[in-house]
């Protein structure tokens, strides 16, 4: 897919803009590079000092074997934490996508009472940071949590996924509404006349046309779940990568920093991979055959 652009900017302006972008992103890129570099080193690489880099794979081996430095014989099951993180992330992603696509369609296409107010309310909900709500969310957790302690782990997974997803859903609804708004009414009418029900239209006609939007909220939902610390830390009965790193840094008196760097790299990986690979997908919007 070739990307077209108008060529109205002077060459010099383009160079200046490029430099500005590089400058603005450099702290992040440098930070990431130092962490990745440190994960392969005996001690942390700091102060741009190449002499502090002593190459080794020890950190990664320790990490994958689950040896966290300070806790003597106690082994940390990194694989399990990774799976936990993935379960939360995928769960959030699926819930956000399901609710987002269905409500986005409804709000974009159906006329009901208080539709406008509802849209504004959703926007308002999006304005609340999750950490502000956490006390209330905790009370609901206490009310709902099962008495039998055996099932508390399973329950906590469900709870974290739903609670975390509800923070992302407002944004997802707005995004999907935007995508559905772009599809001409005639396509939906055509399907109605061809004999489709509203649900069939949503599934067979509308969803395929908003694929980039679905991909976007799947991705953002996944990353929200993957990156979350505070909800997972508060409610989940198990550790994820985020809480493992936080535990290493915060709870232990002596943290093995290169090991933490390795864990951080592992933790960063999906984020980087997703953003690099999905760029094209997010850009691809084909609406041919629909003159507007």
């Amino acid at each position, binding site marked *: 897919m070739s990307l077209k652009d108008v060529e109205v900017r002077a060459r010099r302006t383009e160079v200046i803009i490029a430099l500005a972008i590089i400058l603005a992103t450099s702290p992040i890129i440098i930070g990431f590079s130092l962490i990745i570099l440190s994960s392969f080193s005996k001690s942390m690489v700091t102060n741009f000092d190449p002499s502090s880099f002593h190459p080794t794979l020890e950190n990664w081996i320790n990490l994958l074997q689950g040896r966290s430095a300070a806790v003597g014989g106690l082994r940390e099951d990194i694989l399990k934490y990774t799976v936990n993180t993935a379960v939360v992330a995928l769960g959030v992603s699926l819930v956000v996508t399901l609710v987002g696509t269905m409500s986005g369609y409804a709000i974009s296409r159906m006329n009901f009472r208080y539709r406008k107010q509802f849209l504004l309310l959703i926007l308002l909900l999006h304005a609340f940071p999750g950490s502000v709500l956490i006390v209330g969310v905790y009370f609901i957790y206490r009310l709902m949590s099962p008495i039998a302690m055996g099932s508390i782990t399973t329950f906590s997974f469900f709870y974290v996924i739903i609670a975390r997803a509800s923070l992302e859903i407002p944004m997802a609804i707005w995004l999907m509404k935007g995508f559905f708004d772009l599809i*001409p009414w005639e396509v939906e009418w*055509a399907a109605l*006349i061809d004999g489709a029900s509203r649900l069939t239209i949503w599934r067979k006609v509308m969803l395929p046309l908003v694929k980039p939007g679905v991909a976007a909220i799947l991705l953002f939902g996944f990353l929200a779940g993957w990156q979350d610390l505070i909800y997972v830390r508060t409610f989940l009965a198990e550790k994820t990568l985020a809480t493992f790193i936080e535990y290493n840094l915060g709870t232990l008196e002596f943290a093995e920093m290169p090991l933490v760097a390795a864990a951080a790299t592992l933790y960063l990986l999906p984020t980087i991979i997703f953003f690099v690979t999905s760029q094209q997908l997010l850009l691809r919007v084909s609406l041919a055959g629909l003159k507007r």
Partner: protein
Amino acid sequence: MVSIKLDRVTKRFGKVTAVNEVSLEIVDKEFMALLGPSGSGKSTILYLIAGIYKPTSGRIFFGDKDVTELPPKERNVGLVFQNWALYPHMKVYDNIAFPLRLKKMPENYIRKKVIEVAKMLHIDHLLDRYPYQLSGGQQQRVAIARALVKEPLVLLLDEPLSNLDALLRIYVRAELKKLQKRLGITTIYVTHDQAEALAMADRIAVINEGKILQAGDPETVYNKPSCKFVGSFLGNPPMNFVEANLEYSGDTAYMIIGENKVNVPRQYTEIVNKLRPDKIIMGFRPEDTILVRNENSVNGRICLYGEVYAVEPLGREYIVTISINAKLIKAIVPRDQVFISGEKVVVCPLEEKIVLFDAKTEKAIELLI
């Protein structure tokens, strides 16, 4: 296949009345054109028949069956949209097969049917392409194929040609008319292009502001418009209108148009004598207008003096705009007659083709009796 009847159908959107007490009958196998300017409510009427909208009041019948409350899929209509509304993510084959798949037809029946319809519309070589790989004309055929594949009782077309380029449009126009006659399917065709309506339809319903102003065969609607609007909407250039004051001396009425004093057209003398209006509008078509330099060279009784305002050569003929009392009218003249701007001329509309309208209601005056 089926006749359609609208019985005093009204559709309101909030405070806006889009369709106002429309009654219309479309007989079986007829090609009916709904003609009107944009915003006149013609597409709304089409969507009411399709079942996308429900009327605020009034009933809709297919044959003897009241379909007012039926959802679109139980009405068995085929609809072709202005933008064709193909499903962009489906290949042509799947686009055409979609209505049959929803009916859960067996796959080999679907295949047979899709290929049959595709052959009929000459798109059978395009079946495994996506809509965006097709030209406008091809996309339009796919849309028609999708509408026809389920063998609908009624075919509804919503300005299907307006996205095609001018030459293709004239070609498709004839194709579509032939197809309709061959299939013998009741067809309703919405358009704002009077030439399309005149060329294709068995009958035309002219619509403005949610009301049907006149419904009839193209000849009648063109030659005997029921009101000023119909006359001004059909024809290119449209009908000329000249306001006239009436003067009576005994049983003879005269029309005073600026400095011209002329007889009332023969076919109207009786009606005018009966109604005795003091003001009317005279309408005549540009092609029914003879333009001469000298009144004696034509034996018409109704001649108006004016001055040539502009001359537009159109190749086959010339359109001459003439100013009569600072009012502009148009005449089509053969290209061997040359006129120059500023020249004094005599405009003689063919007497039997003149139509008179009431000045106040703008309706044809014979309708006022």
